[in-house]
């Protein structure tokens, strides 16, 4: 083969260029500690990384949503428990005053005073707030849902929060649902995009529109008791007993519901945290350079580069000219 000087020098240039190109890439990886610096480094990986980043941003928000839901539900649970206590106390009073043995008109008039306090307490608990939002108002969170007479002004709006991708959880218990044993529905869910939105949680208001079932309202019943006590109406007092009992079971059932939501919420929060760790790992394996590998490759490349330079010196040999003296 004919070998010309031109070829020699081209080979030198070529090896140096290639080596420098590889070093440049490795240096970029070493400097950023990332092997994915531009999409063309790994186009499919790049799309995956973007996807994971979106998930991460979403998960942060889901975490915030979850914490907010937790606050709401815990406060609701607390309020429901207080209401149950109030109903329990009213039931005790009714029980104590419903027999002729230990009670008479005077005692009944006395305890009627206490029942009035219970009523006021129930109204105040029902108007509990987080910040300036009334938790039992349904969607009407800006005004007290229950007035001094025990009338409900809220609605049955369920505030849903997305606590994980496509997992929606109701964070409130509308007063209408907690204060009545047989609430009537008011709000219709619109159709279209709403389909499936509230499905997974399966936790929308159960509106048992059974026509024959009697609806008992907590404020009305406490008032009934008070009036019966004032009127010294033993039958009336007895009548309230069973209904207060129903009311209490209703509140306990509501608490159980809130409790199960809290459980589910906790599970979801945990699983999001686990997911974050898994995805951080995946993203790191796609994006991050193996530092040890990069540094050792860089060292290797440097050796190759030095070799190329050294061999260039040898390639540039004296020509026949030098010997023709």
């Amino acid at each position: 083969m004919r070998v010309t000087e031109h070829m020699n020098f081209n080979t030198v240039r070529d090896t140096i260029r290639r080596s420098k190109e590889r070093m440049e890439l490795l240096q970029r990886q070493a400097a950023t500690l990332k092997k994915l610096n531009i999409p063309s480094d790994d186009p499919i990986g790049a799309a995956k990384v973007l996807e994971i980043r979106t998930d991460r941003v979403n998960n942060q928000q889901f975490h915030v949503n979850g914490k907010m839901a937790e606050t709401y539900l815990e406060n609701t649970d607390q309020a429901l428990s207080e209401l149950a206590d109030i109903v329990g106390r009213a039931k005790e009073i009714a029980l104590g005053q419903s027999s002729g043995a230990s009670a008479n008109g005077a005692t009944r008039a006395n305890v009627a005073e206490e029942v009035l306090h219970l009523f006021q307490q129930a109204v105040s608990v029902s108007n509990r707030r987080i910040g300036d939002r009334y938790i039992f108002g349904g969607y009407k969170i800006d005004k007290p849902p229950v007035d001094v007479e025990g009338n409900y002004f809220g609605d049955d709006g369920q505030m849903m929060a997305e606590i994980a991708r496509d997992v929606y959880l109701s964070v409130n218990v509308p007063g209408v649902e907690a204060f009545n044993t047989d609430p009537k529905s008011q709000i219709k869910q619109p159709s279209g995009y709403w389909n499936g939105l509230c499905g997974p949680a399966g936790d929308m208001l159960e509106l048992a529109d059974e026509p024959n079932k009697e609806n008992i309202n907590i404020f009305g019943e406490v008032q009934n008791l008070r009036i019966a006590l004032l009127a010294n109406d033993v039958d009336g007092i007895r009548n309230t007993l069973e209904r207060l009992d129903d009311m209490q079971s209703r509140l306990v059932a509501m608490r159980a519901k809130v409790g199960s939501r809290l459980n589910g919420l906790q599970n979801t929060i945990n699983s999001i945290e686990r997911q974050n760790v898994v995805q951080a790992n995946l993203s790191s394996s796609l994006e991050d350079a193996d530092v040890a590998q990069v540094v050792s490759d860089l060292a290797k490349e440097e050796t190759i580069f030095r070799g190329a330079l050294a061999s260039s010196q040898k390639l540039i040999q004296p020509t026949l000219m030098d010997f023709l003296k």
Partner: protein
Amino acid sequence: MGMAGVFKTGQSGMNVARAAIATTGHNISNANREGFSRQRVQSAPNETRTAAGSHGYVGSGAIISRIERVNDQYIEKQLRNGAKDLAHFEEKDLVLGQVEDVFNEMHGDGLNRLIATFFNEFRRLSNEPDNEAVRQSVREASQALVGDFHRLRKEVEEVRRHIDARLENYTTEINAISDEIKELNLKINILENSGAPANDLSDKRDVALKKLATYMNLNTHKDNNNNTIVEISGVGPLVTGGRSEKFSTARSPKDDQGKQEGSLDLVSTSSVQAVVTHQIKGGKLGALLEIRDQTLSTIVDRLDDLAYALTNTVNEIHIQGFTRNGLTNVEFFKPISKERAAEFLELSDAVRDNVNNIAAAAMPEAPGDNRIALVISGLQNMRLMNEGNATMDDWYNSIVSDVGVAAAKTKFGLNQQRDIITQLNRMRDQISGVSIDEETANLMQFQHAFDASAKVIQVADEMLKTVLELKR
């Protein structure tokens, strides 16, 4: 043959040797010139004459028959093709690098992040639909998203303008090179009609042809009159012997093959149709046109689709909702058409002017109603793009990944083509390259031949002397 003939013979040898030495010198001087082919002196025996008093023929020295270049036209052709593909990949790599920069989301905040933020702001709003500060931040996030759509659109447009500027420069260069080839054709014809090969001019023409080939797919051949004909593949002649065609550019409206409004068309006198934009393939022009009219047009279309889908779906839900002030049928984005949607994407005046016009509720007078906000945030996971096969996130991510794939493919092709060119250049050098050692050896060889031929004259001179002294 007479005594004087020997002088002549010696002189012819000196002539040949001198020419050979001069050619060697020429080779050495041009050793590093691009596209130079080493030259060789071909000599032939001079006419023989009968020797006096015999029937034998005695040679009478040498003459220079021709000085030819050592060159393989087939390799030259391969080199032209190789150079064309290399230029094609280099050009593509350069422009795709710019496109990739536009869509590089690997380091900072890009549209991907902003889309996620947009939907998460609606999630925040669904937590606190009555909080004005959150409404403000929904609007900020939306404005940032709109701004980034505009940025992407503008930067892609910038790349397009850059491509057009290059196209314009290239047409000037193509015209200059075509002219050069035309001139060389004329000169070579004149020289070669006298019978001798025009070595250096042929080298020059080969270089010019190689340069011209980097711009587009060309066919080069020789006609019966030994004229070099350069044809643009699928269009028409560019250089025919002593005639060359002209390239120019012209701004023109959008066409149906991906060329956008206001982008340049290529116009050539090579073709009767004049406009040759979509017939030009390969080389630098082919690379630029392909990226401008295919890659970028697809990207812009997809961005427009995304902006259009975003506007429409968000609005469709938003108008069903009720604002903080109980208004309904309020748009979130200004309604736009699909055409250039990413460019015209804008918040509606109502939302821009007052954050209370963001509708979070599905019924009036319900400050705690978050259903609209919830449904809008839910759009993030809905497969609204590509006929129900991709979410908006997927759609945008696939743009980024497609740009990456195109850039990676080009880089791979470029490296491969560099290897091929290296190999072809070695092959050419093996045949046509100048080796200094070889030339030095030749120099000595020819010098000795020169010396020896001079010696012949000296001997002839002495012979003549001997003959003249016979008389005494």
